[in-house]
């Protein structure tokens, strides 16, 4: 048994030398082969970060933003504005294109499609109303213009609808009344008439629809515009940036509960006055409203007593210091990160009543209110807006006095401030324009259109900047893991952006705004995803320090044996050569 066993296993040291060498070389070569063919790819695959596919080419296309905005204008000539010869050539359609290059990556083009026609009999009847407001109302009952379009009615010079010095009346919906100029009285050709009308219609368009200044202001996230005049800077600083939702908080400040017991019907007032505006603005953003009452909340500033009017006054200079002490006491909804608009109503305490705000010229401000850009507004109650309170308290008044607040007046001021802060308010119209007061909804249709234009452009600009900078960031830093959900959000953002741009070009304002909002939501979600944190900064020397102790002990024997094999093969080759000769 033992001998057989011994014969089976030949000791390694007895085997012939050549066989040993060959086996050694084979072993080294196979180990090297395993390391290179299996090991290196395995190490590469297991240490690479998972990066889902992103539509990089489409994102690069979006980086060069080309926005086409188009508006439909209908110009209706009333009786007495066109001669019969001119009337034959009307109806006709004209298209105007204007290109603007904002910077190397952004280009805008505006297209106005103007349709000229004459008025129908019903429209003539409507224009025969005594005042412009009534004409506007009856014109609206005839037809409703879709979002983003305008109708301009050209009325003869002698018409009594508009006052003497007013040439254009802008209604509450999407109509304007334009008084034809006197030089068109004598018979001219249709081309001359249209040439005369064109700049005036363009002026109306700038007020009622998008204008170049508005659109470039909306692009401020994308393009660093040099500041224009002071008014435009103030406008851009005042209005809140586009956001999917806003929170509005109404606060009643009562510094003196011992003297005043306040009653304000905030629920009813919000329902009646504020909610119609917010419902009309619902395509633009979501709003949530809450209200609170704060007791013993003082203004941080001491008012001065004005003996000439025997009232207390607050100077306009000291208003800036009012907000900070109060803001510390205002709460906010902890659940959302939406921007908050605060509207405060302050009832002065009995010792400092009545309290009025004076402007720089020492005149009383009629609204007794002020607002802070991107924050909200503060209003001090006026005596005349409060029931049940005399100017001065009698000696035998029983404290606390019940005070009922006239919410209509208060909400009128808050509504005006809300319009300013949301960016609805347009700048002062050019001379000769008369703008109808906005209705009970607090918002005219054309103002809503303007807001929708600028919000769509702003959303598209912001979303493209976000997506391109995200793509750039992910490209630059190779260590960040790109999960599937992020890739999905980016793809959906890109799709929504492309749809938004095409809808804007087609002139469908509602769809364009909706797609742009979706684009913003997806792009923000992708950019601010918590998993995209590049935390580990690996300088190159640290990478070497990690890998060398792992790989060097393994690679050195392999390399040395390979070198030995190569040198032996070369030696053999050299030995063989003389033999061949």
């Amino acid at each position, binding site marked *: 048994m033992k001998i057989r066993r011994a014969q089976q296993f030949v000791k390694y040291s007895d085997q012939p030398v050549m066989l040993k060498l060959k086996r050694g070389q084979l072993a080294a070569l196979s180990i090297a082969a395993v390391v290179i063919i299996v090991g290196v790819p395995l190490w590469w695959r297991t240490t690479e970060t998972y990066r889902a596919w992103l539509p990089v080419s489409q994102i690069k296309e979006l980086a060069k933003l080309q926005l086409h905005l188009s508006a439909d204008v209908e110009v209706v000539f009333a009786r007495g504005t066109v001669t019969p010869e001119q009337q034959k050539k009307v109806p006709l359609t004209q298209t105007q294109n204007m290109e603007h290059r904002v910077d190397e990556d952004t280009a805008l083009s505006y297209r106005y499609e103007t349709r000229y026609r004459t008025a129908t009999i019903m429209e003539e009847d409507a224009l025969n109303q005594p005042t412009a407001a009534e004409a506007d109302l009856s014109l609206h009952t005839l037809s409703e213009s879709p979002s983003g379009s305008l109708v301009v009615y050209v009325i003869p010079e002698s018409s009594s609808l508009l006052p003497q010095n007013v040439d254009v009346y802008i209604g509450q919906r999407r109509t304007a009344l334009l008084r034809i100029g006197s030089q068109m009285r004598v018979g001219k050709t249709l081309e001359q008439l249209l040439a005369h009308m064109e700049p005036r219609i363009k002026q109306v368009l700038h007020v009622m629809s998008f204008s170049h200044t508005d659109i470039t202001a909306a692009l401020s996230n994308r393009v660093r515009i040099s500041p224009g005049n002071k008014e435009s800077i103030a406008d851009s600083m005042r209005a809140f940036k586009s956001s999917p939702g806003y929170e509005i908080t109404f606060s009643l400040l009562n510094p003196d509960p011992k003297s005043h017991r306040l009653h304000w*019907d905030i629920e*009813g007032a919000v329902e009646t006055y504020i909610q119609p505006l917010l419902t009309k603005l619902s395509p633009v953003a979501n709003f949530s409203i809450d209200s609170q009452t704060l007791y013993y909340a003082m203004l941080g500033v001491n008012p001065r007593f004005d003996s000439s009017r025997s009232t207390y006054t607050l100077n306009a200079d000291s208003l800036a210091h009012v907000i900070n002490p109060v803001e510390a006491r205002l709460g*906010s909804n902890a659940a959302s990160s939406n921007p908050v608009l605060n509207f405060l109503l302050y009832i002065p305490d009995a010792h400092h009543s009545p309290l009025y705000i004076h402007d720089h010229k020492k005149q009383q401000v009629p609204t007794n*209110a002020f*607002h802070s850009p*991107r924050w909200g507004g503060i209003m001090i109650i006026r005596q005349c807006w409060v029931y049940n309170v005399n100017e001065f308290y009698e000696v035998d008044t029983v404290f606390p006095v019940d005070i009922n607040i006239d919410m209509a007046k208060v909400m009128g001021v808050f509504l*005006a401030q809300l319009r300013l802060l949301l960016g609805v308010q347009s700048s002062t119209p050019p001379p000769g324009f008369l703008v109808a*007061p906005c209705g009970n909804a607090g918002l005219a249709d054309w103002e809503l259109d303007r807001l929708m234009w600028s919000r769509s452009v702003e959303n598209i600009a912001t979303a493209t900047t976000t997506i391109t900078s995200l793509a750039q960031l992910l490209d630059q830093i190779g260590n960040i893991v790109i999960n599937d959900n992020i890739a999905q959000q980016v793809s959906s953002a890109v799709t929504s952006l492309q749809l938004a741009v095409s809808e804007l070009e087609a002139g469908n304002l509602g769809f364009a705004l909706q797609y742009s909002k979706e684009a913003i939501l997806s792009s923000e979600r992708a950019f601010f995803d*918590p998993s995209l944190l590049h935390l580990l900064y690996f300088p190159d020397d640290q990478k070497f320090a990690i890998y060398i102790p792992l790989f060097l002990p393994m690679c050195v024997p392999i390399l040395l044996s390979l070198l030995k094999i190569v040198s032996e093969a070369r030696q053999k080759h050299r030995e063989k050569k003389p033999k061949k000769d």
Partner: protein
Amino acid sequence: CVGINLRYRFHVSLLCKLVSCFGDRAGQFFSSGHTNNWAVLVCTSRFWFNYRHVANTLSVYRSVKRLGIPDSHIVLMLADDMACNHRNPKPATVFSHKNMELNVYGDDVEVDYRGYEVTVENFLRILTGRLPPSTPRSKRLLSDDRSNILIYLTGHGGNGFLKFQDSEEISNVELADAFEQMWQKRRYNELLFIIDTCQGASMYERFYSPNLMALASSQVGEDSLSHQPDLAIGVHLMDRYTFYLLEFLEDIHPASKTNMNDLFKVCPKSQCVSTPGHRTDLFLRDPGSVLITDFFGSVRKVELTMETINLTDPIDAESGELQKEMHTYADQLPVSEIIHQKPKQKDWHPPDGFILGLWTLILLVFFQTYGVKHLKHIF
């Protein structure tokens, strides 16, 4: 000498203001371009002997609150709790001056990130906005493109890094990248970065985004030194740079017109032993025109409301019939269920992997030593 200059400048500016109030007002409204202020104040070191870092941060917090920035706009991160530390002989206080003159831990300090929540990851998440959706509002930096942000860091640092919590560090490259991401999303209008650590100037070397101004307490290769120990408390109370910074800020009030050039002169080498540095090349405005209150305070811009809307509809009288809903508190925990719970049956688990592995090893060694033929005795 410096103090007299400040006062003189204040009087001159007051005179100018009286002479031309309208022009100045419009100019002031538009000169800075910001509508709100934020502050991120971070103390990165723990342990009782780093008391001075917490005191540094709380002093800046105090100044910033005094000058008007509300708590909702301040993100305060303290890596350790000194006020309630076991070794604090005066609990619930953090003093910044010897002889316990100034308690900077008042009764309305709101710490947003405390203890082990102060990490490099959380700090970068705050700056870039990549926080999980469940983060409350007070822990977020909700700035927009018209916000001026003040960022103050203090702790132990070195050439190109700042140590967090004794176990990790943030490098200047990461910080610069974070600021660049903030700029890409327009999360700030202007940013002032102050750092009080050893070799602090290395932390702002790598910045490359616009509208950044940076101050540091010492240059590369220098150490920032602490100010003075308090014998009763037993540790150093403040660092020199922040001590003189606090002294400088105590003279500022919300309406003051002191500008950044005065801030650069705070703590010269004779007082600080190290050389404070600053960097303004990325800042667009001239530092002489930047007010201290642009960053440390919160001076609101105000416009008078000139319009009102005529509302005529009467309010619906429906609200009178609203039924009062009875509200009750909901139980946080299902108390009755917890009290009457029966103890859970523990499921049987197979033996742990470690035990299995150990037994396998013992068996292998046994059979290796004594040969495979012994297997037949077992099976």
